[in-house]
């Protein structure tokens, strides 16, 4: 990684790191919302009616929670696998 030879103060570095962390958090949140909307729309609105029916709202609410469950489960499975593969190489 090339920082172009610039020397940064520790304060500036901390600022950059905080900025990066914040941008990452925002990007992850946006991705989650976007995917959740797509998945739950497809799952719960099979025939778009003239209003957002109560049954559809209930479905979307549960779908959001199940999406988060899935994301967490995938994350756990993925990191287990990475550890396994890393152990195989060593």
């Amino acid at each position, binding site marked *: 990684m090339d920082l172009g030879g610039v020397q940064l103060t*520790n304060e500036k570095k901390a600022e950059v790191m905080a900025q990066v962390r914040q941008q990452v958090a925002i990007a992850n949140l946006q991705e*989650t919302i976007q995917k959740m909307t797509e*998945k739950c729309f497809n799952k719960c609105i099979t025939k778009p009616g003239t209003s957002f029916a109560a049954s559809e709202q209930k*479905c979307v609410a549960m779908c959001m929670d199940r999406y988060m469950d899935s994301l967490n489960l995938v994350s756990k499975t*993925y990191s287990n696998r990475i550890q396994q593969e890393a152990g195989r190489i060593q």
Partner: protein
Amino acid sequence: MSLMDSGLNFEDGSIASGMRVNNNNKDLENFLMLEREKAKMTAQMFEFTDICWDKCMTDKPSTRLESKTETCIVNCVDRFIDISMFIANRLTQKSQGLSDLDGLD
């Protein structure tokens, strides 16, 4: 990647003299490299969730993740990784003129 095109904004771009300066940027470089790796993994995680949700969430969402769905998601992630490694290996072998099909069935 240079720091300047990473989207980060420095008001001055230089360091005011007299301030504490750590003589190398190693810590920041390491931080950015780690963040980049983390971002790749996060993107992969979203990708897996996308694929495995479509494969495994066949019913309407209920009050909790059913155990068959959980099993399906775990297997889905593991098989996807298997396949991507399999394809990478096989393409490498093919490019070296080796045939691996004999041992497959």
